[in-house]
């Protein structure tokens, strides 16, 4: 296999294709108490992330929307890995995931990205980084939504 198509199959790994065809947690949970909408104006991809917070813990997380294979798979796998994690753990994972897809060296003390490592191929496709991170940015807004106190200042 030539180098460039090696990169292509690194991007579209079997796991990613499988999640894009059958995304997990693709639903709107009735008990969600926070949500946010994400939109990539460049490509028209849309993503809504729903979370059910139990204190600091993410009790349930799901998403809906339309987008490319990378963005669907990323959202699907994000919901899988974050269920049961705390807000702080989620933020740390996003940081690591962002480093992974933008090709930055991982710091020694990193949480284990586990299955999310299949997205490492994205770093060879700078135009697709936003696809991979749309769900995560949306998650961040969903988490902050509740956290940001309503203030007149």
């Amino acid at each position, binding site marked *: 296999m030539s180098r460039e198509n090696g990169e*292509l199959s690194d991007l*579209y790994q079997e796991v990613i294709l499988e999640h894009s065809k059958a995304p997990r947690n693709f639903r709107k949970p009735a008990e969600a108490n926070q949500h946010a909408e994400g939109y990539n104006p460049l490509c*028209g991809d849309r993503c809504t992330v729903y979370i059910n917070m139990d204190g600091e813990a993410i009790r349930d997380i799901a998403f809906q929307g339309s*987008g490319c294979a990378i963005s669907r798979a990323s959202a699907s796998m994000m919901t899988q890995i974050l269920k049961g994690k705390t807000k702080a753990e989620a933020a740390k994972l996003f940081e690591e995931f962002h480093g992974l897809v933008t090709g930055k060296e991982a710091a020694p003390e990193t949480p284990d990205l586990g299955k999310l490592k299949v997205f490492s191929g994205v770093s060879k496709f700078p135009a*697709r980084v936003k696809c991979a991170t749309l769900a995560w940015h949306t998650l961040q807004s969903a988490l902050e939504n509740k956290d940001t106190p309503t203030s007149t200042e």
Partner: protein
Amino acid sequence: MTTIVQPVLHDPRLGAAPQSTSDLDLVRIRADFPILAEHINGKPLIYLDNGATSQKPQVVLDAIANYYNHMNANIHRGVHTLSVRATEGHDAARQTVRKFLNAADTREIIFVRGATEAINLVAQTYGRVHVGAGDEVLITAMEHHSNIVPWQILCEEKGAHLKVAPINDRGELMLDEFAKLIGPRTKIVAVTHVSNALGTVVPLRQVIDIAHRSGVPVLVDGAQAVPHFAVDVQALDCDFYAFSGHKVYGPTGIGVLYGKRALLDEMPPYQGGGDMISSVTFAKTTYNDLPFKFEAGTPDIAGAIALGAALEYITGLGMDKIAAHESELLAYATEAVGAIPGIRLIGTAHDRAGVLSFVLDHVHPHDLGTILDREGIAIRTGHHCAQPVMERFGIPATARASFAVYNTKEEVNALVAGIRAAREVFA
């Protein structure tokens, strides 16, 4: 790891496309465009994103270099030789544009940054004078954002209303509905000549007749039209015509607004500055004559001259021959791509130019774009700065192949093979 079926795109066997009946010497034309020799991801470049911007022939690149090597000076200022050369070059470019559009007078040709600036200019000058509270601006449902937003800004400022004439499921303007939307409060119609997202060619003669019967002037966004066929602004009888240089084989940063002289004469200036004045005191400024009234500041002199070179290049090839070649190519591509299982063509107007827009079942346009790019094939994916068009067809995005004079049926074959390979990946 998934197994990706490798399309054999550059196998000579795939090149066995039906012979083009074109009168153009495509081998020679392709040799005029240095960038077409590029390899992308190890594959020969197949450039099918001409609706976004076209590639540039050597004569355009040479015109830019020649200007800076042998002519560079400011125009309309010096008595020295270089200033005279620059001024004459700039004037000659304006004359070339006039001929290209068959305008009556070079004073009707305003150099701007591109079609976007041309439309903003009209909205902010003609529009601000003539559109008031409760008045209406009429556009169509297939406009590019550049022919929507300037009018929204104007309407917001003036308390006016933006009306939108609908399109049918083929992506054609519904002329009856359009006519019904013209009323006593309609102050201007702004319509595209060719839709960038759908390829629809708007029947401008009819549109303009309908508008003129009610005394309403018409601005035409010609950005997607001028590369593909001859445009005659006098035959169209349009009031304003806008286009961008970079989509018609010229450089970025230069474009043209044509306006009927009587309208331009009575319009206030767009921007103030040097070159657009005839005298300035702190008490009063007298504005310069056309076209300089609308060209404040030092213009893109090299850009205008290079645009002139681009227009001379394509008129030299023959606009009718270009139109015939591209029309044959588009028909071929429509049939070949349309025959791929799972393809839905977006924009199936009877009269189309330059653009083939489509969606593919189970393959998002972005994924298709990435897979084709690996094969050296450049297409546009996304909403094409025409979000209302996407909404009309109930889709977030399309893949768009858009053609230029240098494209071939062999390249269409490669596109088809690439799309089929993408289907395999996501099967």
